[in-house]
């Protein structure tokens, strides 16, 4: 009885049907994802890092980042008071690493979202309209693919000046092109399916086709691509910051490495200043890559190799 009534409510509206379908799809997705051990490990570590980054303002005192308020020595080796030693201004490297995670993750995720939004928009438009629209958009994408990302980002930052916002924009702008090509190919595949022909026959406009039919179908691919791209965005941010193009008012892992390098930590042998941000980048990038790969193989079963 109860099973039937729930079935009845589920069948009462189109929206409810859609939600039920999505829930099922998600559950199916998770079932597949769960079988990928590396993906799970990556996800677990990633959640841990994100939790730490979110908790940092509550569990630590931001005052420790103001050099006029701290009393640590200069490049002190790790001790009880400073578990990861101090930087060249006497601040705790542990504290810097924790706060640095926030900026690195923020820039990585936001810049990727920007890149994905631009990439999806361009990809779907190009795939849907075809013809000269596609040609123009894809030549533009080609141009961005051909220009080396790092060089493009450096030049843009030099012109725009460096702060958190411009870094996010620059990374987003420099890395949307790959996504656009991917999405365009998937859009073409989706648009070839018969139900889109049916939708067109029923009078669906461009917007309806793109937003209701194409977008939901390319979404899984977008997600997998996003996750992978966060890793490269974080790397790009670290690279730019290490080259001295970071925002001097923000502490990210890249700026930490830059400062360590400029302060001569390499000659001094101050491994405690170099390792934490370096390992941080390594772990986070690895996690995102593991998660992304796992998602990709769920979305695209052909990728599932010897593991299964």
């Amino acid at each position, binding site marked *: 009885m109860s099973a039937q009534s729930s079935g009845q409510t589920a069948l009462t509206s189109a929206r409810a049907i859609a939600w039920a379908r999505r829930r099922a799809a998600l559950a199916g997705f998770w079932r597949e994802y769960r079988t990928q051990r590396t993906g799970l490990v990556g996800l677990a570590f990633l959640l841990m890092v994100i939790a730490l980054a979110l908790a940092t303002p509550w569990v630590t005192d931001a005052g420790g980042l103001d050099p006029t308020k701290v009393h640590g020595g200069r490049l002190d080796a790790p001790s009880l008071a400073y578990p990861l030693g101090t930087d060249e201004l006497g601040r705790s490297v542990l504290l810097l690493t924790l706060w640095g995670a926030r900026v690195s993750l923020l820039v990585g995720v936001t810049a990727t979202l920007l890149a994905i939004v631009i990439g999806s928009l361009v990809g779907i438009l190009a795939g849907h309209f075809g013809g000269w629209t596609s040609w123009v958009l894809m030549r533009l994408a080609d141009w961005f693919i051909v220009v080396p990302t790092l060089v493009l980002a450096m030049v843009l930052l030099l012109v725009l000046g*460096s702060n958190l916002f411009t870094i996010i924009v620059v990374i987003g702008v420099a890395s949307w092109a790959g996504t656009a090509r991917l999405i365009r190919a998937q859009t073409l595949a989706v648009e070839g399916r018969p139900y889109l022909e049916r939708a067109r026959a029923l009078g669906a406009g461009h917007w309806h086709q793109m937003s209701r039919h194409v977008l939901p179908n390319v979404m899984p691919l977008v997600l997998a691509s996003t996750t992978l791209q966060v890793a490269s965005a974080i790397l790009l941010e670290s690279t730019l910051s290490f080259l001295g193009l970071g925002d001097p008012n923000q502490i990210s892992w890249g700026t930490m490495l830059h400062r360590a390098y400029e302060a001569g930590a390499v000659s001094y042998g101050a491994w405690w200043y170099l390792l934490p941000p370096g390992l941080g980048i390594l772990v986070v990038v690895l996690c995102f890559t593991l998660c992304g790969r796992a998602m990709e193989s769920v979305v695209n079963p052909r990728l599932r190799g010897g593991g299964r």
Partner: protein
Amino acid sequence: MEARTRAIMHTTRRGWRGLATMLAAVAVALAPTAGASAETHKKESDTLVIARGQSIDSLNPYFARNVIDFETLELSYETLVRLSAKDYSYVPGLATKWETSADGRAWTFTIRKNSKWSDGKPVTAHDAAFTYQLLIDNEDIHTRHVDFASKLESVEATDDHTLVITTKEPTPLVPSRYLPIIPKHIWEKVDNPAEHENNDPPLVGSGPYQMVEHVTEQFIRFKANKNYWDGKPEFDELVFRYYSSPDAEVAALESGEVDVVGYGSLTPAQFKSLKGQDGITANAAQNRRFVSLVLNPGARTKDGKRFGDGHPALRDVKVRQALHTAIDKSQLVDRVLDGYGDPGVGPVPKIFETLHWDGGDELITFNLEAANKILDDAGYERGKDGIRTMPNGSKPLKFRLYAHSDNPAYASIAKFLEGWWKDLGIEVQTESIEQGPLNDKNYLGEYDISFSGWGISPDPDFLAMHTCAALPGVTDGTERAHETFYCNPDYDKLQDQQTQETDEAERAKLIKEQQRILYRDSPQIYLYYQNQLEAYNSAKIESMAVQPADGGLITGQSNFLWAYHSARPVGSGADSEGGGSGALIAGIVVALLAAGAVGFYVMRRRTAGERE
């Protein structure tokens, strides 16, 4: 304005040079002997190798701008008068003696008879006259050196060994001006000496070392002048070898590939790591540099036309004094420089004892309460958010602070300033900007506070930059003789007096008074004089002269490179091994990386021309 052009590349030396910097650093660290084969013609023990981060730009003695250009000139040519290694006092160079006429306008130099050009011809007063005459005759050269050249009336070689320079009015600048004497028989064949790059070795000069070969971003090679009148240098060869990063230099010193490091100064951490090592002598020397903040006291032209968008509060001397009082300079020295420096007072660094003003009893001491009181009394009240506003309540005291993006010390200092000034109720927004655009903003008056660092020459012509005459005539930022739009008739009067005063003690008094006025009005706050941190291979070099004798420096000497002329090798032997195919491959890798770096570095250098 030689003071600044000389100084320019000192700190940009460690500027960001892109990916290639650290790649090259890694490559060099992996391959200690890489790149050495190209310029090693002699036994290593006969060659003095010095790590440099610059390459030659122009060796035209009138237009040289990078430190390395000047040092190449100083090794290859000579000046009439040298600045002593002991205390920067005048000692004979090409001129054995000199005297002024009773009215102070005619200077008679006696040129020595025992000096020869490297092609064998004797150096005579005619060469010197030719060199000085170009300042009067050649329009481009005259314009470039107008502060000095406009004071010259005539130059004459009365015989082979007597040079008479007559000025329009008495001036102490004749012996102090750095001007390498060039060979007339070579240069009179040059069409336009102002456009002659003079970069093609071998140079014909009369100095202790002659430049015989140079390859951009690789090395510059010098041969000792065997006939040098002041004694042949003990090292037969001298090489400036190019390194793209200080860490690579340090690694090269440790491996014995390089003998002297420290141009542009090591970081305290690098210095400490070298200090305890056997066979390496580390030298923390006083330096000729200051690091300062320029506050925009209201950008204006000579005619008083206002422009730019500087914060109005900074036109108020009280606000500038409050900011000055809320800077703990000794803490900056301790924490940013690790103690390797001295708190700043005026623009003339402590190294120049006779001209340096120490603040006396007017010295401002760090005191947040006093600073707050100054602002309270002047009517800058705190708003609800704790930030002060203009006395009429219109605009909050939020200042933009511009720092050079290639200077890590500035980023650190900015963190301290933010902290202290927050307690004053002043908000600071630090922006990190490339040098070129930052200079543009400064000269357009579009800044509130920005960093500025200079190297000062023994004769502090930097002081002229704060005169009303240095203010721009136009508002487009192209006239760049001033430092921060400061103009004060009292100061100008002192400037006029001191550039005509030939009595040294009197002149020192005037220069100190100028510094006192600058200190009081605080258009520019001198934060510190940082030490030059340098090191050399004492297993190979027994001794080198420092300048000045008391706590002086090796890298960055003025007018004559006493250190390299006086360097004495320790015995002989200790040929370094290595080489082979490994080194060859590493050499190729390094060359490729260096080639990659060229693009960026060239771009960067172009903007590095004016100040830091």
